[in-house]
């Protein structure tokens, strides 16, 4: 009986979704509404409006900057939630007692793996920097660079066995880095208010100002994303 009801509910929901899909325009249909109003305007004016040659970046950081701001806050909130949930039950008062040294990992990392990761790490970091810097002109940008850098940091932490007890950067700096995305957006909002009279507006003058704001956002999203990914990993691994 329950299985029958489940199947019935799934069939009804599926039918509704398929009916909705049938009403959508064909993928890539040039006559679809999205291609006649919004996209046409962005393709025609995107470069002069934002000064970015990559229209995906223009949409993400200028036309749809509020959405991107929301996404950045969401991943920041995810880290905050993990920190709250996984916080040690009875944390010792700061500066009173050092936490006991963590037990050695069950499997010592192999020297071969460590060597290869250390060999590849600079190239991965360079790729992340390229993706961040060139996101303005090529596919890529802050989010992509952030996840590549974050994955590299997690990989290095796994191989080197570094944990919360040997942080790469001091804890105070790590907090600011983890909040880099929302902070960059806050700065961009202030700049927009002062320079363009609108929150998240891009200043029209000077010409390099728009590039600077976009680069600031990309840097904030990238560094913040990487710090958040590493923070999630370290927090979940615990001591």
């Amino acid at each position, binding site marked *: 009986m329950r299985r029958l009801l489940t199947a019935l509910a799934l069939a009804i929901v599926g039918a509704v979704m398929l009916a909705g899909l049938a009403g959508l325009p064909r993928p890539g249909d040039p006559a679809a509404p999205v291609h006649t109003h919004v996209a046409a305007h962005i393709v025609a004016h995107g470069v002069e409006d934002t000064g970015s040659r990559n229209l995906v970046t223009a949409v993400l950081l200028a036309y749809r900057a509020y959405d991107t701001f929301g996404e950045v806050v969401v991943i920041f909130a995810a880290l905050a939630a993990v920190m709250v949930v996984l916080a040690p039950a009875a944390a010792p008062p700061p500066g009173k007692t050092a936490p006991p040294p963590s037990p050695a990992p069950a499997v010592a990392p192999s020297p071969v793996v460590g060597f290869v990761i250390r060999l590849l790490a600079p190239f991965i970091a360079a790729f992340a920097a390229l993706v961040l810097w060139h996101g303005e002109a090529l596919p*890529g*940008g802050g*989010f*992509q660079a952030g*996840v590549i850098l974050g994955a590299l940091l997690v990989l290095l932490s796994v191989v080197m066995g570094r944990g919360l007890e040997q942080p790469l950067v001091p804890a105070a700096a790590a907090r600011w880095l983890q909040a880099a995305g929302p902070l960059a957006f806050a700065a961009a909002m202030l700049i927009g208010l002062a320079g363009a009279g609108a929150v998240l507006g891009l200043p029209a003058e000077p010409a390099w100002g728009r590039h600077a704001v976009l680069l600031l956002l990309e840097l904030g999203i990238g560094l913040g994303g990487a710090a958040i990914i590493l923070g999630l*990993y370290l927090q979940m*691994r*615990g001591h």
Partner: protein
Amino acid sequence: MSALFDLVMLALLLGMALAVARTRDLLAAAILFSGYSLVMCLLWLHRGAPDVAMTEAAVGAGVTTILFLLAIGRTGRRER
């Protein structure tokens, strides 16, 4: 040829999604989900979205798999 590639990849995707949903071994589910992300990454690339493909490969196949493994390590391997 392009449609054939899409079809094969979508069939793989569907198979992996069903396998993830059906298996009771959470470790196997995490690994299968990583494979799902890799296939999804190829599909994004084929659809002309290399930036999304980069994110999918790094987050879907890399970071979330490690987070899943950590979560399994903190709880248990079998689904109850």
